[in-house]
């Protein structure tokens, strides 16, 4: 039977980077998976949890569980939303006996996209190649450390042909996004993202892989303001390109 994956698109990817969703869908299909998109999904509750609004976050966590519990594999292109489900839901629902087993089903089924390619699909991308040589760098987003993902993304990226990998200095240093932190403390957040963009500019890369929509908005936002020509992309976009898949539409 064809395995099925449910796509957990996340609020920011939904609105700002829907083509990443298309890329993820088509790549999963390429590897023989059937992809479903539960349309009732909204938000996992991360902004509320992180800002201390825990009863509100709990209500959204329950909703998220209701929407996704029929699935054995839930894939998200965003590390921080994955970490919210996997690492934080239990803080909200551990003491709720009715919800705890349902929560466990969902938390165990949830994967970040790169993690899923690596752990479940065991994807080998070494036969794929970008259409032309490109210098690509990689930003290690913070929430990946929460879910125990290390250099899987870099290794997948380096499998692709025509990728000239440009290591990023302080690759695992936060980009300064931090959700509402970026707006509450713009000066501090600004100093941090400035350091990140300086490091990016120093790589001379044409593309920077960043697998979290929030970080991408932050980093690309300053790259754009500072005229740093590096394009910030999701790894799914590069893989799709190497597969010759059009992500401009279905």
């Amino acid at each position, binding site marked *: 039977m064809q395995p099925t994956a449910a796509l957990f698109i996340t609020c920011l990817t939904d609105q700002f980077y829907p083509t990443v969703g298309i890329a993820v869908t088509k790549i999963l299909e390429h590897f023989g998976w059937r992809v479903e998109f539960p349309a009732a999904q909204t938000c996992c509750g991360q902004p509320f949890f992180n800002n201390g609004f825990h009863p509100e976050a709990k209500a959204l966590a329950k909703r998220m569980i209701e929407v996704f519990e029929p699935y054995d594999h839930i894939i998200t292109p965003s590390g921080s939303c994955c970490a919210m489900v996997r690492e934080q839901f239990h803080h909200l629902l551990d003491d709720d006996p009715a919800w705890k087993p349902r929560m466990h089903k969902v938390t165990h089924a949830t994967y970040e996209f790169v993690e899923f390619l690596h752990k479940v699909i065991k994807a080998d991308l070494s036969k794929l190649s970008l259409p032309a040589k490109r210098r690509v760098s990689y930003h290690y987003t913070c929430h990946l450390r929460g879910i125990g993902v290390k250099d899987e993304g870099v290794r997948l990226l380096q499998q692709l042909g025509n990728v000239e990998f440009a290591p990023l200095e302080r690759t695992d240093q936060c980009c300064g996004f931090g959700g509402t932190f970026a707006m509450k403390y713009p000066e*501090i957040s600004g100093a941090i993202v400035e350091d990140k963009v300086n490091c990016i500019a120093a790589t001379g890369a044409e593309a920077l892989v960043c697998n979290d929509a929030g970080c991408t908005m932050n980093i690309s936002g300053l790259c754009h303001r500072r005229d740093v020509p590096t394009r910030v992309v999701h790894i799914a976009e590069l893989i799709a390109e190497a597969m010759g898949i059009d992500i401009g539409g279905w």
Partner: protein
Amino acid sequence: MATDQNTTNFLEEAEASKFDFHSISVKAAGDERLRKAVNNAVLRNDAGRKNILNLLPNPLELRILAGDIKQHALDNLDYYLDQLVANVEKKGGQVHFAKTAEDARRIILDIAASRKLRTCIKSKSMASEEVELAHAMEHAGIDVVETDLGEFIIQIDHDRPSHIVAPIIHKDLRSIATLFSTYFKTPYNDDPTHLTMQARTHLRDKFRRADLGITGGNFLVAETGQVCVVENEGNARQSVTTPRVLISLVGIEKIVPRVADLSVMLKLLARSATGQAMTVYTSLFGGTRLAGERDGPEEFHLVLLDNGRSEILAGPYRETLRCIRCGACLNACPIYRNIGGHAYGSVYPGPIGALITPLFQGLSNFKDLPQASSLCGACYEACPVRIDIPKHLINLRRDIVSQHLNGPIERLIYRTWAWGLRFSIVYSCITMFQKWDLRRRAKKTGWVKKLPAVGAGWTQIRDMPAPARKTFHQLWPKRKSEP
């Protein structure tokens, strides 16, 4: 006041007003010289820590073990405190309990007054910073000198430490050379060796004459009644061995059960703090000089500092007391790197400071500190005793909300927003509105340059990408309609 004008202004401001992290941190983040000085130093320490820890066979397991040792000691603190006190007294030492900072100062000043002690050599100790001991002693007319080079510089400059391990991390060589030239009335010379020798000569004389030594303690060993102090300069060793009377002021949470536990803790402390395998000096001491011994104090006093620790111990934040004050979380923190330590308004800066300062001094007084984090988790990854700092910061934010310490408008916005997200229809209305609004502001360039209200903080620094023409929710049904 401090020779560095920025620091002077900064400390004056912090003193004058109620602690206002927001405006202070904004200024600090804009101070290029400060950012550079702090960044250079902490990045070096952070890299040093990672390199040396990775040489160990299994650093993660060692950190888990260290956390377990500290947690076990905290979970059974009453038992180990009794054991410690009995063992210190057996060696001829006297133990005092200081409930508050005021008590600690009074106990120590009383000891000094009743023994007519005039000259004190003090080694670096966060507990003494916490209770502002040196100031109190100076005020009481005791000639007290900080003997750690960094702390000595802080003392003669009337400055404040800005890092747990490296107190003068905010200073550069030039400002230290200027300070020494003024203080010692000698020509300006910024050769580090010269400056160190100048301080050394000055301190040697103090070491010879001192009748009181004061130290802190990195660990208290319950089974032997010993204090363990680690350092690189030999000044703490001097404080322990030379003066007639020795006082160690140590927080009650510094207890470990056995000497054997030090083999784990010491392996991690220096590596995490400075990237050293071990500090130059590790002193284990307790009790008084015995017959036939050539050095050591005639009197030894152990002052055990509570100052809010029992309350934390009894509550949900007990784990935070595991902290061994290595400063690794400061070095790892992108925020600390960019604002330095003074902005935190407390002797404990950085991620651990953002966490324990509100616990020690009241959440309502320091409610900005738990917000000053992007929750990136670098601190948790660095912590040798595995304190889950981001988790506790989030819990403090939860307490802020539940105690209504944030504004009513903020509460209203979050609650309404969260309520709306419970309904698909409201979610799509919000995203449609946002899309329309942002795309309108982007004027077909794909980027928004300026946003009002809460969004202003975003566009103050960077541009905001415009949302896509269609959301994924809108795109998906089209796929299904295809054959």
